[in-house]
């Protein structure tokens, strides 16, 4: 009954294809996508114009809530971003909440949040170029004075980096704390001479409400809102 080591690792590599690692994260992402797709197909199946069913009302509610969110934070001209924002929010929240099932959260892998942040980064640059033109975008770095150019470049890159690290950090800390807690509770169980780690039943559930549910929802929301705010301010609605 010696002191065991806490071993917190990254995702396992399931197999390799075309020289790319297919990790636990990717496989769980496929599961998440399958579940979300199934839910969407179920909700939007057999929709009625005049007599909507409960699932259709939920689908309409989701669509409208995202549409209103995008309209409020990005303006009506950026409404076409709505499906992407909904995608990233649903992917993120479901990817985080699979930890409730004892699975490794998809968002607890820095590669995932970095990929999303890269999409946001590209979207911001695209919006800025669309708004100011390529020249205008590049000249924008030298403002207000040319000496600040390196700092402007850093701040441009800092946006996706901070977004991805924030999301990853919050979820990953949840993983770490949960594992430490399990380890600690097992130790306590062992200390009072029980082979079965009785304390691991029930106690982690309380913390899980915060680390999995609250953080998962919060980070999905924050990531989506930041994407909307950054892309929206890069391509603002023309003032009348």
């Amino acid at each position: 009954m010696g002191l065991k080591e806490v071993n917190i690792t990254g995702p396992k590599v399931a197999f390799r294809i075309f020289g790319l690692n297919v990790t636990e994260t990717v496989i769980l992402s496929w599961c998440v996508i399958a579940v979300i797709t199934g839910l969407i197909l179920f909700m939007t199946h057999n929709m009625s114009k005049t007599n909507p069913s409960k699932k259709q009302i939920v689908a309409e509610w989701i669509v409208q809530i995202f549409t209103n969110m995008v309209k409020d934070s990005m303006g009506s001209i950026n409404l076409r971003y709505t499906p992407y924002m909904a995608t990233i929010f649903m992917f993120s929240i479901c990817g985080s909440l699979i930890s409730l099932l004892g699975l490794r959260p998809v968002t607890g892998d820095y590669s995932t949040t970095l990929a999303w942040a890269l999409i946001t980064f590209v979207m911001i640059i695209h919006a800025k170029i669309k708004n100011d033109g390529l020249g205008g975008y590049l000249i924008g770095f030298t403002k207000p004075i040319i000496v600040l150019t390196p700092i402007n470049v850093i701040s441009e890159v800092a946006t996706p980096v901070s977004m991805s690290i924030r999301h990853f950090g919050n979820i990953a800390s949840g993983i770490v704390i949960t594992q430490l807690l399990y380890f600690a509770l097992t130790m306590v169980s062992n200390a009072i001479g029980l082979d079965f780690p009785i304390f691991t039943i029930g106690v982690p559930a309380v913390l899980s409400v915060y680390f999995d549910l609250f953080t998962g929802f919060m980070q999905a929301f924050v990531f989506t809102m930041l994407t909307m705010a950054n892309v929206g301010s890069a391509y603002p609605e023309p003032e009348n």
Partner: protein
Amino acid sequence: MLDFLSIDTGTIVLTLLNTLILFLVVKHFLFGRVNKILEERQADVTKTYEEADKAKEKAKALEADYTELMAKAKDESAEIVKNATKKAQVHSDEIISNAKAEANSIISRANDDIEHERQRTMNEMMNEISGIAAMMAEKIIKKEINQADHEALINDFIENVGDDVWQQK
């Protein structure tokens, strides 16, 4: 097994691909379908409102027509009543004047008759009187010869006055 904090190209590429797939699903199956329904419903609502407005306008037009017709009918009926009254007045006037004329003619005829009768009676009376006078004269002339005859004549006359001699004539 990757490190806890690792950047793995495979995961990034596959996550980008996964996100794209999910994006297409969300865009097409969730937003596409729901927005289509919402638009159709919006179109229906707009259409319903338009139809309601149209129906309202139609009703208003009908009401105006109806009011106009009613006013016209009222005028017409008033005219008819007026005409009828006028006609009746004329008719009654005619009847009255006819009646008056007839009455007048009856009265005048009656007057004529009366006059005629009076004349006739007068003539008769005159004839009678003259007859009587002649008779008397005859009698007087016949009985002038003597007193006795005279007296007898008078007596006879007096006797005969209330008798059928008078009345037979």
